[in-house]
């Protein structure tokens, strides 16, 4: 990542966090839908980004969202965990050659089918951990599960929409 990439990351982080905090968190669509759009920032970080940088970014993002929804630790825990799972996945299950290209996963840089699966799985896991941790009980597990399914489906849609809208020109970006 060079300076230009960093600037772009900061700019998109500000934009996406603003959308998340000021619009989505205040929508109150119904009690089941609470999509976390901002994890698009986490899942589109370069695949060979240094681990410690990745963890710090994840923690910072979670911290910002937490501080605006008065849930200290909740989002940051989930973000750092997702970062850990993402590194485990890239280090063990993709070939080293592709890893060294350091691309940022998106429609234009990766196979569409792979990308869809990648986004869906990580988004689902994120919401699973987040909402389970938030409710922190199995009393209304059916309810929690519905929340997870609805929220993550909506989040996947939003993330794909965002990718389609803002990430078209970055074909030869690596």
């Amino acid at each position, binding site marked *: 990542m060079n300076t230009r990439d960093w600037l772009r990351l900061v700019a998109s982080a500000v934009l996406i966090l603003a959308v998340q905090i000021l619009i989505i968190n205040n929508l109150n669509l119904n009690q089941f839908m609470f999509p976390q759009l901002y994890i698009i920032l986490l899942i589109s970080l370069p695949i060979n980004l240094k681990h410690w940088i990745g963890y710090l970014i994840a923690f910072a993002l979670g911290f910002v969202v937490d501080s605006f929804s008065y*849930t*200290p630790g909740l989002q940051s825990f989930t973000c750092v965990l997702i970062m850990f799972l993402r590194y485990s996945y890239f280090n063990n299950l993709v070939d080293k050659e592709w890893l060294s290209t350091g691309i940022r996963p998106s429609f234009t840089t990766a196979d569409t089918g792979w990308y869809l699966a990648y986004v869906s799985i990580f988004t689902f896991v994120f919401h699973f951990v987040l909402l389970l941790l938030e409710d922190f009980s199995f009393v209304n597990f059916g309810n929690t599960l519905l929340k997870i399914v609805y929220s993550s489906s909506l989040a996947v849609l939003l993330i794909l929409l965002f990718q389609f809208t803002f990430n078209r020109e970055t074909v030869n970006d690596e």
Partner: protein
Amino acid sequence: MQNLLQFIRTNFHIFLFLLLQGISLFALFRFNRYHQSVFFSTSSTVNGNILNQRKNVINYFSLKSENQRLKEENILLRTRGTENFLFVSKDTQNVFDSAQVLQYSYLPAKVIYNNIRKQKNYFTLDQGKKHGVEKGMGVISPLGVAGLIVDVSENFSVAMSVLNSDFILTPKINGQILYGNVNWNGKNPNLIQITKISDHYDIREGHEVTTTEFGHYFPQNIKIGNIKTATRKENGKYWEIDVELATDMAQLGEVYIIKNAFRQELEEIEKDYTNEH
């Protein structure tokens, strides 16, 4: 020693990961119960101001419906009024003179953060200690009961929403005080439940549910909602009641904080007796 340093260096990211997770977990459990108020007092100036700015913009979009609600409320206020007064002398009524002391006064406030998704929901208001808000004051919307102040900072306050499984009220159903509990079960944000009402009372769908003065949070006859369904539990004995909330908690905007001028006096005198029961 050399080896240890080397080990730490090569596994630095793992340690960082564990450290960050530790911090998060600590924050989560340390602040879980009071997380709102604790977090609030430390970051209230920055976040409160940003949320306030957001609210300033958002306000324009809801002006029309807010106006409508205010009109409805005005009509409501014209048709009542005396229940806000405590009659000091029993033989004078409806005359506004020194025989009556204003017991409940209303402080207008705006909701700057609101949530209906969790089982224990809270919302944040733009009035604080500076404006005379105190813990334990009731919060109503133009349409009905909304919550209860649980924490106050200099400029802001946090209220427990009626959509919070810790929120309990004694209801008045169809004008009659019944010793049940109004308490949300955490499922549908439009429906609140009433439990522990003995089944020999005559309860029908559509009956109006209002507040009582118990707890000294609200004046009596503030609307909570209308009964949507009332069924007898299978083993008899108790009613299972769903009440459709008068307040649309997802659209909470303008609210009033209720100040009970005699709250301290009432609590003082009741203090020795409430613990014995």
